[in-house]
């Protein structure tokens, strides 16, 4: 019962923060520098690790698909499997997991430390709502940067698959047939569905991490606890939401 209360309180707090941030949406044009700074943090600094991860996800998918499909004589379809898996599921999900680990933890740590060291209180007494200058630019930035990250993750992942398809002996199909199958079976709609999923995941991750950071209570020790909580809750939410969003999009 106590845990259910805590969950409901958490949901209520996140919804409140979302509505409050939304009410300041009109101030976003005046917060250009904060928005660009967050785009840099969420997009640019996450890009290398997203690219590396996606490349290897693509290679592993191609390896496994090659191994499994060899028995059916269907190796030509490896491209379709890698293409669809990356676009619909692994691209958005793994990018969101990375976002939670890298960006979500940083957001929770920054806001929790601002709370513990009374910077949030200082903003409140100055009548500058934290939702306006700390949360809104981050939410806007994640909505803009997630599609960019997903498109790059997909392209790099597909390329990773093609490298394995070409150079691993038991797979051994040409890049032309790999990409032909990929193009034939991976539709534009699949890529869009993946981007929509990632938008939902990214938005929720940033919102939850902001909320956990802003609601930190106690001393410096609580900053670490807030970061752990933010990452764990984000990962759970990504997996739970993945089912529901996939169900809706199918």
């Amino acid at each position, binding site marked *: 019962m106590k845990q259910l209360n805590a969950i409901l309180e958490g949901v209520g707090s996140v919804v409140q923060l979302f509505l409050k941030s939304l009410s300041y949406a009109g101030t976003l044009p005046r917060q250009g520098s904060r928005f660009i700074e967050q785009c840099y943090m969420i997009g640019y600094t996450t890009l290398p690790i997203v690219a590396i991860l996606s490349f290897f996800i693509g290679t592993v998918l191609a390896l496994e698909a090659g191994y499994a499909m060899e028995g059916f004589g269907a190796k030509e379809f490896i491209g379709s499997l890698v293409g669809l898996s990356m676009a619909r599921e692994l691209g958005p999900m793994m990018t969101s997991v990375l976002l939670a680990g890298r960006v979500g933890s940083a957001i929770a740590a920054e806001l929790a430390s*601002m709370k513990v*060291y*009374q*910077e949030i*209180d*200082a903003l*409140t*007494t*100055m*009548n*500058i*709502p934290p939702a306006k*200058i700390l949360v809104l630019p981050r939410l806007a930035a994640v909505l803009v940067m997630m599609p960019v990250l997903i498109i790059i993750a997909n392209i790099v992942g597909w390329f990773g698959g093609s490298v394995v398809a070409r150079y691993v002996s038991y797979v051994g199909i040409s890049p032309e047939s790999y990409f032909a199958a990929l193009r034939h079976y991976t539709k534009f709609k699949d890529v869009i569905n993946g981007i929509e999923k990632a938008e939902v995941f990214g938005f929720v991750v940033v919102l939850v991490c902001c909320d956990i950071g802003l609601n930190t209570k106690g001393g410096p020790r609580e900053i670490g606890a807030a970061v752990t909580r933010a990452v764990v809750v984000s990962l759970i939410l990504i997996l739970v939401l993945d089912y529901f969003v996939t169900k809706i999009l199918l």
Partner: protein
Amino acid sequence: MDALSCSKTRNPFTGAEANAVGVKVAGVNKSYAGTPVLHDISFDVLPGEIFVIMGPSGSGKSVLLRLIAGLESPTTGSITVDGQDPCLEETRDRVRLALVFQAGALFNSLSVYDNLALYPREHRSGDEASIRQKVMHALKILSVEDAVNKFPSELSGGMKKRVSIARALVMEPQLLLYDEPTSELDPVMSATITEIIATLKNEYSVTSIVVTHDRSLALTISNRVGILMEGKLITLGTPAELKATKDPVLVDFLNPKIDIAHPRFKKLETQETTT
């Protein structure tokens, strides 16, 4: 007109007059998880006065200041600033209230200049040139203009305190709250901060509420002093009244004497020898 909302204060930057505000604390109780921290606190702070709240550590002084600043709500009772609840955003829109935090609470990711410029920028009070003028003027009043391009992590404790007061000053406050403004400072810096608080009151008639342990600050610059002990306001009076008090509890608190012949020191000595 209400006695708590009728004095005039002068803007430190433009010299223009504005309303100084009064504070009314009525029957305030505050508890955390069922543990009472403040019991039935009531007092008024008149516009333009320096009201000092003193008391031993853990007596609830800072909690009371947070309630007045609107950062928390009382469990029961009411607090009004210029007749309005300080927790409401509308009150903060109307009444300029600044709080100088014990540890400064400067924004670590911003330079001193940006720390001070944040409020006027967010509230669109003037163009960048006039904001710069305000910021530099406030830093000059506090004698920290050399720190303008530094970051809070590069400042000493005393400088942080002064920058924090300068940040409050840029807000052109009608009510200025100080939480332990002289704690962790050397005697010279403490005296400087005390002078600054008195100057702000004398020159600009800002209503000030100061929470402190500093007896000399309390008794030299305040108009009235309230003493909190174990969450209760045990006395309220002018510095002269407090100096003349015969109440043994207050005399002990205001003039602590170290008696090394006291049994508790003997006990410590015995413990040290045993270990």
